[in-house]
């Protein structure tokens, strides 16, 4: 049984078919990349899986549990975490608070605990903070953890967003262009980070434009073009697929 299974997913906005029959599956602790030209429907597919968009038709299941029609928070509750293409950190809040958001569903703490500052409140707050530090260490954040997240440099904000998603302790992590806007050295570190996340037993679906990174890290690559799936296979096979070369890689692929 695969972890995530997407079958014949269709999504249209009015008359425009953003996704037109997408099927793919992700196994436990597997890294699958979704690639395709801009506007191919990659992020829309993410939004369907995470509950932000309601697909027109299709099936999405996580360990045979239906995800369709659930609110995003319920999908998150089942063990799916994501990052956003354009960073969506809680800018005014501290870096730590951002990562604490990941622990939200794990914290056992009632309103009464909070009002009376019971030992349970103190313990859960302490654990939550420790967890946040742990995940910030894991992603290798160097910046100030106590300051506002918007003050971090761009690359550090990317890491913070991933730490926040990891603190959710997901089984499946959806990364939407994690390497966008990173310099060469930071991309190397991102590659390493993605492998270490896989090492935790977390499956990753990756949307990425950096082909070097995609070919290096993915076990499988799904290619979308105009909402249609045109290839699904091992990186080296996809690279040689004529349809993919024509649609996406263009003449540069052999340059």
């Amino acid at each position, binding site marked *: 049984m695969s972890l995530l299974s997407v079958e014949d997913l269709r999504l249209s906005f009015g008359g425009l078919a953003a996704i037109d029959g997408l099927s793919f599956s992700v196994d436990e602790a597997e890294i699958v990349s979704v690639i395709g030209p801009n506007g191919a429907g990659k992020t829309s597919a993410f939004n369907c899986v995470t509950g932000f968009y309601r697909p027109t038709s299709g099936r999405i299941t996580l360990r045979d549990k239906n995800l369709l029609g659930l609110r995003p*928070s319920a999908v998150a509750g089942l063990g799916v975490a994501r990052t956003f293409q354009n960073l969506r950190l*809680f800018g005014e809040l*501290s870096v730590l608070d951002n990562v604490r958001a990941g622990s*939200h569903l794990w914290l056992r703490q009632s309103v009464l605990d*909070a*009002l009376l500052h019971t030992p349970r409140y103190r313990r859960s707050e302490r654990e939550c903070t420790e967890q946040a530090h742990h995940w910030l260490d894991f992603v290798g954040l160097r910046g100030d953890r*106590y300051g506002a997240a918007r*003050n971090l440099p761009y690359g550090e904000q990317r890491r913070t967003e991933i730490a926040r998603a990891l603190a959710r302790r997901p089984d499946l992590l959806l990364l939407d262009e994690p390497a966008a806007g990173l310099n060469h050295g930071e991309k190397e570190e991102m590659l390493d980070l993605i492998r270490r996340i896989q090492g935790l037993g977390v499956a990753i679906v990756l949307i990425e434009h950096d082909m070097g990174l995609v070919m290096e890290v993915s076990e499988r690559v799904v290619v979308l073009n105009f909402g249609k799936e045109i290839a699904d296979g091992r990186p080296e096979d996809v690279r040689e697929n004529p349809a993919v070369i024509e649609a996406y890689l263009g003449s540069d692929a052999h340059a």
Partner: protein
Amino acid sequence: MSTTKVRRLGTDKPPTRASRLMRNKWAGTAGLLIALLAPFVDATPYALSIMTSAAIAVMLAAGLNIVVGYCGLLDLGYVAFFAVGAYTSGVLATRFDLPLLATVPIVIVVTVIAGIIIGAPTLRLRSDYLAIVTLGFGEIIRITANNLDVTGGPSGIYGIPHLVENKVLFYYVTVVVVSLAVLGAARLGRSRLGRAWRFVREDEDAAEAMGVHTYRVKLAAYIAGAVWGGLAGVLFASQLSAISPGSFTFLQSALVLMAVVLGGMGSMPGVVIGAVVISLLPEVLRGLADYRFLLFGILLIIVMLLRPQGLWPARSKEVS
């Protein structure tokens, strides 16, 4: 270090000495001490009535701060809950001869229900739309009170028993209740729920993606705000022993919102100061007769120009 330079939200300067002093954890205790010692300075009925009103305004501001400051929901009809609390306790106390204290549990239940009734349909809306609908609900409550027989119509309810007869004692009761309310609101703000409120304020989609049921969390903020407002209403009914629709106009909602913005949205010490300023400044300026509200307005504009983030803004920097 800059002292009076214009600061915009989003800029970050090292904290000034004054703001570091304000971050002192003893600030709350100091504020409480000032409130407790004030009657020893001036205990005329006029002063006591102004101070009690100021304390009630603090409670309202603390409640609205949960909704607007923590959760980022612009509520222009907050006075609705103040009215619901005041009228519920007033009607119960006068019609059923209940002591005012006995109405408190019922007031809590009724304000929770009012919060759900007003919040459930409106909280699906965002920003401007929410503001307009809450404005409408604020007016609906006032106009309903104006037209119902049970609420006494335009003349309202009078002869509401006091919580305690003695004015000085009532002031102290109010200060204690309000202090607990402020402390409670601040503690909620530092809890799991309070963080969820801020996540919603900062980015609703990202909060949802992290597993925060944003609708439920917003409703919780609204209900908490409603209960705080309703309990402030009980104190108000007890203080004046008479209430009428004229006490619950849009101007009241605007003044409470002004206290929150002036003090610093999301900052409990800030909104306490904001509420005290908003309720005391018109009294201090009383000597200016007709010009006092003009000067009041000008002073507020000056403050917002010099400190747009509020008198005592919420910090995004955490103490390690």
